């Protein structure tokens, strides 16, 4: 009996050691998943893809009925908006043409704002709600890489965390922390742009924490729109993130934090676009150069 008891204890102890080792392994900065993980993710992703179609059909019907109730009011608001947009469209087209002409003159073809979209559907959402991850049905086979930004029609929703061959895991903005953050900016007139990082989510007020790193004057106001910035590396500038709701000081009183309401609905996501920055990254070229040197 004494022996049995110690054997059980032994197994639990080994279990704890294995647990610690596994957590340590998975918390490392892993760019790519292991071979086994990729296979499992691909298989589960394939099954989820088939299951997702009927499920989304049913939930679609339910939300359609919901939508039908306020179609009339929405229609009227939209009609007004369209009338306003006609003149805006004309302006934008003019500006775009002019911009292109000017750019051709100075010989610049690609900008940090250009991107190539990869369309994808969300096939599952992680049941573990602390993770705030969703899985999409496109992977490395379709050209997706880690750290690419994922958007919907309304705005940014997150970035690609892990990829397998036919699926990819997206870290939603709600799950951002010091380790998962993106650089963002608020455009102001007269070269007074504000730069900072989106580095967290406050569940209580349902808003993103935008840590202001650089502001020439304290000129962030409520209602300012926060966009992604080209300084983040892999993603293009000018993607809408959200609107400033409130400005507070951080716990030490050294920097200011803007509470940003996300532009996109982070709980009801179906179709997304993964954004691939069109312009070449100088960083990658440097890495390549290093490799060449070594070889």
């Amino acid at each position, binding site marked *: 009996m004494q022996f049995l008891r110690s054997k059980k204890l032994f197994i639990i102890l080994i279990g704890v050691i294995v647990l610690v080792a596994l957590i340590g392994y998975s*918390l490392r900065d892993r760019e790519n998943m292991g071979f*086994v993980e990729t296979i*499992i*993710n691909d298989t589960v992703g394939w099954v989820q893809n088939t*299951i997702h179609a009927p499920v989304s059909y049913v*939930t679609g019907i339910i939300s359609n009925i919901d939508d039908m109730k306020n179609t009339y009011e929405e229609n009227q608001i939209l009609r007004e908006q369209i009338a306003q947009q006609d003149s805006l469209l004309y302006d934008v087209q003019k500006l775009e043409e002019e911009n292109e002409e000017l750019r051709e003159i100075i010989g610049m073809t690609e900008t940090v704002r250009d991107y190539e979209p990869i369309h994808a559907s969300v096939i*599952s959402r992680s*049941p573990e709600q602390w993770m705030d991850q969703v899985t999409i049905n496109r992977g490395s086979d379709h050209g997706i890489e880690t750290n690419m930004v994922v958007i919907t029609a309304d705005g940014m929703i997150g970035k690609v965390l892990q990829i397998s061959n036919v699926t990819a895991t997206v870290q939603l903005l709600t799950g951002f922390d010091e380790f998962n953050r993106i650089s963002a900016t608020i455009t102001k007139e007269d070269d007074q742009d504000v730069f900072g990082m989106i580095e967290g989510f406050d569940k209580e007020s349902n808003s993103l924490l935008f840590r202001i790193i650089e502001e020439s004057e304290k000129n962030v106001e409520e209602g300012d729109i926060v966009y992604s910035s080209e300084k983040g590396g892999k993603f293009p500038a000018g993607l809408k993130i959200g609107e400033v709701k409130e400005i507070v000081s951080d716990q030490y009183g050294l920097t200011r934090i803007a509470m940003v309401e996300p532009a996109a609905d982070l709980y009801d996501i179906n179709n997304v676009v993964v954004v691939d920055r069109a312009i070449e990254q100088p960083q990658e070229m440097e890495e390549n150069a290093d490799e060449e040197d070594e070889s």
Partner: protein
Amino acid sequence: MIRRLVLPLVLFIIIVLEGVALELLPLQLLSGDYFIVPHWLFIFLVFVAVFFDHNDTYYSVLYALIFGLLFDIVYTGVLGVYMFSYALVIYIVHGIKKMLQGNFYVLLLLATFGIVLIEFTIYGIFSVVGMVDISIESFMLNRLAPTILLNLVFLIVIYPFSSKRLEKWKTEIPLGERMR
């Protein structure tokens, strides 16, 4: 041979369904202050422990290990957390079940107890690692209570389909092939 594959297949389908489970819930529940975590896999493993396992077989613990790891790979990316906590709690449930009869009320009790234990283990591990930063009060109020409630609903829904079937499968395993 086919009989042996049915149970893992059911567990696999449940794990896949968990990913779309949150879409079936109304949006107001998700975007509010509450976290609801579907532990369907765990609930079914409790079924297996209570109705399928003999006192000396440990299929439920084995499946908890395998499918817990699968859950980690697919849904969290942090390996080992669900594997460890599922296997440990199912082992404890299996131990308690030896002293009790396998009926509906025992199942309800064991599942509730199990989910509380699971949630606390996962909360403990994640807060030690530093991935979760939330006070224990709000954890119990915003996450534990709604999670227990919703998972018990799932248990009551699948009870009529699974309990008798699992007991039938239990008798079909030949004595000599039992895993101890």
